[in-house]
């Protein structure tokens, strides 16, 4: 394992471990309000200062990491798998099927799915726990985020379909489903990995934007998306630069993912 990969693994595991061990790393809970220490700067008591309600930013960052680092990659895996199956099948089958699926993908990309998210939120009971509610949001994002990459996967499949090894496999009499599953999908790995890497921060940011419509995480549970929304108050950010901690952590995690996924891109033919 090369040095970059080791560093990336270490950082990622440290982030995950820190979020899971939040209760040991800080005695503050994410909801606890120290009302006499509003928007306080970093100190020995509050390592990253406090927010506008006197809640420890470090605790909220750790617990928010737990929510986002668990749910966003899960949603990314879901959207990538759906994209792989639909886009791959479209490219593999070709002809009329491919045209129909491609039209379906383009249609899917154009629809205002926001209203489906609003409808689902309306159907949930009002006493749904914040974690359940945000998990459902991420699951929906995963179910809705497949269309754009499916198009690219379809195009990639069309290129691979005439590869020598697939022609040889077909000539050997291997069933089509097996060719698709064992020989085609694995060779789409570079695209699938790229899709996964892009989706993780995209879903985190989508959850942040959906918060403006009440579709994000509910108080008091933190998430990276909710913490990132604070950055829109740029004047406060200039005065309190420690507010950038969530975006720094997100960039670090995304970069580590990229380093890890990069070495998976060596394509076996």
């Amino acid at each position, binding site marked *: 394992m090369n040095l970059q990969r080791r560093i990336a693994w270490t950082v990622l595991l440290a982030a995950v471990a820190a979020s899971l061990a939040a209760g040991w790393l800080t005695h503050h809970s994410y909801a606890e309000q120290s009302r006499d220490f509003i928007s306080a700067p970093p100190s020995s008591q509050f390592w990253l200062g406090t927010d506008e309600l006197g809640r420890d930013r470090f605790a909220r960052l750790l617990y928010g990491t737990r929510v986002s680092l668990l749910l966003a990659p899960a949603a990314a895996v879901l959207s990538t798998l759906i994209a792989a199956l639909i886009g791959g099948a479209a490219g593999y089958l070709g002809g009329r099927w*491919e*045209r129909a699926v*491609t*039209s379906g993908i*383009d*249609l899917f*990309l*154009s*629809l*205002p*799915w*926001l*209203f*489906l998210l*609003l*409808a689902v*939120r*309306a159907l949930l009971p009002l006493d749904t726990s914040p974690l359940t509610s945000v998990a459902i949001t991420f699951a929906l994002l995963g179910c809705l985020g497949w269309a*754009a*990459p499916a*198009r*690219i996967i*379809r*195009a*990639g499949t*069309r*290129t691979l*379909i*005439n590869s020598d090894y697939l022609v040889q496999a077909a000539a050997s009499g291997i069933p089509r489903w097996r060719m698709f599953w064992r020989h085609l999908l694995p060779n789409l790995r*570079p*695209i699938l*990995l*790229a*899709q996964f*890497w*892009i989706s993780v*921060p*995209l879903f*985190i*940011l989508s959850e*942040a*934007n959906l918060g403006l419509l009440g579709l994000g995480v509910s108080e008091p549970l933190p998430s990276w998306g909710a913490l*990132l*929304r604070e*950055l*829109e108050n*740029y004047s406060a950010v200039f005065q309190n630069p420690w507010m950038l901690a969530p*975006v720094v952590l*997100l*960039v670090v995690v*995304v*970069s580590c993912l*990229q*380093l890890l996924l*990069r070495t998976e*891109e*060596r*394509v076996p*033919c």
Partner: protein
Amino acid sequence: MVSLLLRQLRRILITTLVGGLLGATLVRLAPGFGVDERELDPRLSAASQQAIHAERARDNNIALFYLRYLAGVAHGDFGFSRSLNRPVSELLKERLPLTLGSLAYGVAGGLSFGLTLALLTVWWRAPGADLLPAVLSGLFLAAPAAVIALVFLWLGAPAAGGARWAIALVVFPQVYRYAKNQLMATAQSPHVVAAEAKGLSGWRVLWAHILTPAAPQLAALAGISVSMAFGASIPIEAICDSPGIGQLAWRAALDRDLPLLVTITVLVALMTLGVNSLADIALAAWKPAGAGAE
């Protein structure tokens, strides 16, 4: 080629019509459809409240609404926006050029920047060569679109310019990542190794043996960049207060403005389908005859 063009046009027409109906249905089924915040005005009498309800209930039957809408479109009438109190066609005429301009510049900028970085990374396949592009793309992927837009405004960029730059910076990380992966995978193919072994120049290998086989996927990128860019334009135009379609879409969504939302859905569908169809047609024209035809 002519039959391909006609097939694409037919596909665009049918998909757009279906898209409009599905979009209208989604809006109709969303909670809060048919309510009006004027209902909370305590000055209004019971009769006025009922009049507001009745006005909003006109569009409850989605099939009838859509038929009326299509009949109107045939005469150039895209309906009336209740949230902005103006004909939708007027709103489009004012705002579409701005958004199209932002999208065109933003997508072109994002594609150019992303592809250029990807090509450079593949060309210069040295260890650590992709570190800077990786960090840049990671940074812009992680930063909210609204924050990127705010930074440009803070630097004093005009609203339209800030929006274009912000869209380009939102699009480029995804373009870079997909393009780099695809080009790198192609660069490791046996035919490229063979070409390099035969002593072909780096430029020729890049153009003829790496870029050309990856063209279908890169063309697909162009297609989805448009819908990516439009999605990004909504928060960006809202932050920059750039009076384009993205800002309109946000207001329409908040007010459940059905005619406006259906028109925007149809517009986005046309844009997405149009760009993707152009990409497919261009590819078909590019490919040698008999090789992976549509």
